[in-house]
Each structure stands twice: as structure tokens, then as C-alpha cells.
């Protein structure tokens, strides 16, 4: 037998926000510059375990990943059984700011993927001075619909199976098999309607076209990294953001898809390292 314990520590945060009480799960590892990580729609903070187990990262950064309400080990608020979950831009940005304040984190770097990559654009617009830098993974200003999200939440279709099927093609073919299926497992474990509710932000309320030209990278550096196999947020979508935001720095990542940090952690880290080094050098 062999055994090992990872350096990641998980705890629960009790937070009163917008008139409701939340019990939120977060994990962290490392010391140094705070790096808050935002998971994709219908998933949870486990996506960042590769990052939190990288000594090269945690020797310089305090990596924190929290599960959004309704996701992972974070509970939905009391009364959830009588409502339909639907994520809005105001709720999403407000909650991120509340969590950062509650954890006492000063001017963190925030890195988000997919809906998280979208919301960093909102954060750049609303709170540019609150962050040391922002990193958008699979970041676009909007997304064109390509399937009816109604299929994600109906009693006659297994929500976990259909969610995993819907996103399976967004994982690059080169992803290690175990990491591909771990990524899909996260989607299979999502609560009923949660993925669909997140996509309300991704497809409707979080559309930030026409506003991103106001992002000022002099106040807050913006890095964008997108996988070449991502057809949800395509490389062209990310390049369009970069064209609209002077100073944004873009990397198109080969052999990666929509979930770089979980589908192929080692390859992703090779792309992230120069970004983290740049941020660390800025002080």
C-alpha cells in the first residue's frame, strides 16, 4: 500500500449576502499572492485541484477556489426547493466580491473559466481597482446558442448524463483519458437545473458586448487564455475581446479545450506559468 495526503485544505464559509444565508465550501493551498479561482457552469472548485497541487504555483500564490451556491459542496440557500435557480450578472459579481471580502483577501488575482471567464470581464468593468490582475480562461463577451438548454433540466432526461454529453466535445481530443472523465464526472454530479441556471448568465444576462471597450487594463491587467478546441467560447471570440480591450494579453492554447485546468492540468500549467510570472513580477 502507498498513501499520500494533498496540501489542499477545505473549509466552510457562512455568508449573509443579499438577504440570504449561504454555507459555502472553499479549498485553498499555498502562500503568497492570493489567486481566487472561479469554476465553470454546472461544475465546482475541484476543477482547480491540479493548480492547487502544483508546488510551482503554491510556492508563490495562495490559491483559493470556492464552490458557488448550489454547486459542489456549497448548499443552495434555504427555500431552494420552491424556486428555479438562475444566475444573473449582478448576483454573480456581487457574490464574488462578498466572498473575497469575507475571506479577508486583499487585491487578489481572480481567474475564472467559461462563465468565470465571462464574469472577469464584468469584474474588470465594475471593480477594476479591487484586483491585482484578472485572468479569463475561455473568455468571450457573449455566446451564440447551439443547443436548447431546456434539455438540461427535465424529469425524463438524466441531468448528469445530458450535461456531460453536452460538454464532452468541449474537451480536447488530446486530454488524458482520466482527466477527461474526471471533468465530465463533475458535470454528472451537478444538481438538477444548476447547469441550465448558470447558462442563463452565459447566454443571456452576462452578454457584455458593447461594454468591454470601457475596460481599462492600466487599472487592472487582463490576461486571456483559450483552448483551440473550444467551440463554445472560440479562439476567435476571445480574440474579439482582445481587439476591443487595449492592453489585454491573449494566448491561444494548443491541444486544449474548454476546461484547460481540469482536462489537462499539466499542459495548462505550461501556458499559465508565464502569466503568473508576469503577475508576480508586477508585485
Amino acid at each position: 500500500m502507498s498513501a499520500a495526503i494533498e496540501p489542499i485544505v477545505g473549509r466552510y464559509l457562512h455568508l449573509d449576502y443579499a438577504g440570504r444565508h449561504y454555507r459555502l465550501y472553499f479549498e485553498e493551498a499555498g502562500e503568497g499572492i492570493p489567486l481566487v479561482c472561479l469554476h465553470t457552469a454546472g461544475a465546482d472548485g475541484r476543477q482547480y485541484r491540479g493548480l492547487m497541487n502544483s508546488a510551482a504555483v503554491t510556492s508563490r500564490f495562495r490559491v483559493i477556489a470556492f464552490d458557488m451556491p448550489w454547486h459542489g459542496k456549497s448548499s443552495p440557500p434555504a427555500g431552494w426547493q420552491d424556486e428555479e435557480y438562475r444566475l444573473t450578472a449582478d448576483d454573480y459579481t456581487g457574490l464574488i466580491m462578498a466572498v473575497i471580502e469575507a475571506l479577508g483577501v486583499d487585491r487578489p488575482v481572480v481567474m475564472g473559466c467559461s462563465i468565470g471567464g465571462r464574469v472577469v470581464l464584468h469584474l474588470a468593468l465594475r471593480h477594476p481597482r479591487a484586483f491585482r490582475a484578472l485572468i479569463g480562461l475561455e473568455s468571450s463577451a457573449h455566446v451564440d446558442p447551439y443547443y436548447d438548454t431546456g434539455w438540461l433540466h427535465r424529469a425524463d432526461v438524466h441531468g448528469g448524463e445530458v450535461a456531460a454529453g453536452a460538454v464532452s466535445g468541449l474537451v480536447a481530443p488530446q486530454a488524458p483519458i482520466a482527466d477527461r472523465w474526471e471533468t465530465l464526472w463533475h458535470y454528472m454530479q451537478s444538481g438538477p437545473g444548476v447547469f441550465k441556471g448558470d447558462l442563463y448568465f452565459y447566454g443571456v444576462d452576462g452578454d457584455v458586448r458593447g461594454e468591454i471597450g470601457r475596460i481599462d487594463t492600466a487599472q487592472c491587467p487582463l490576461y486571456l487564455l483559450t483552448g483551440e478546441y473550444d467551440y463554445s467560447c472560440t479562439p476567435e471570440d476571445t480574440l474579439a475581446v482582445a481587439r476591443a480591450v487595449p492592453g489585454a494579453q491573449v494566448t491561444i492554447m494548443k491541444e486544449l479545450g474548454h476546461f484547460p485546468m481540469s482536462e489537462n492540468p499539466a499542459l495548462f500549467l505550461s501556458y499559465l506559468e508565464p502569466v503568473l510570472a508576469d503577475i508576480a513580477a508586477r508585485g
Partner: protein
Amino acid sequence: MGGGSAVADLGGIEARLAALPEQVNGDAVLLRRGRYLNTICQLDFGGASVLLRILDGRIVDVQRNPSVMPSADFAIIGEPPIWRRFLAADPPPGDHDLFAFLKRRELRVVGDLHPLMSHLLYFKALFACLRDAAR
């Protein structure tokens, strides 16, 4: 299979379709994934088409160029060059998944989509079989 010859123009797809039942029916994982799947799926290649009859996850019939009134639960429709790209052995980024083609409106799905959406992982694995056969 029987009928016309238009399907044969799709870069060897006819032979791959002929081999599909053996591939799928010999894959225990795929059969478990599709054990409650019973449907008729039409692949429409623009002038030629194929009906896949699936029973408890097994492909029990591949009917090439069915009658003038083919009856299927749902159909996936596209022009031959699109299918050729979609079913290429190692497609480039953007050509590697059904949903990518749906997003660009290059392939369409019509009919009762419940069998497809409730068994997305099954159908994606089925298409992967068609790609594997091209290698």
C-alpha cells in the same frame, strides 16, 4: 445494406457504416450506455441517407437509401462535404464534435430529439466509431 450508391461518395463512409453494427454491438461499455435506447436515427447526406435502427443499444439494421418515405424518430442532416469533415479520422479543432457543427448550422437535427439528447454520450461514441474506422 441495399439501394443506391450516392452514400459511397462520402470518402469510404459506406464501408464504415457497414462495419458499424459489429463495432457498436461488440462494445460492452457502449451497449451498457445504450441499454434503454430504442430508436430509428436517420443520417441524411443530402440526396442519400441511412437509417440506423437501434434496439436496446444494439444496431440491428443499417438501411441505405430507404424508401421515398423514410420514417425515423430524428434525423441529422448535412451536405456531403460537411459529413466528410465531421467523420474525418482526426478532425481539426472545430470539426471534432457534433455540437460544433450544429452551432455553425452546418449540420441540423430535426424530429423527436429525446433519444439523441437522453443518450448524447452514446451517440458521440457511435460517431467516434465511424472516425476510428477511417484510421
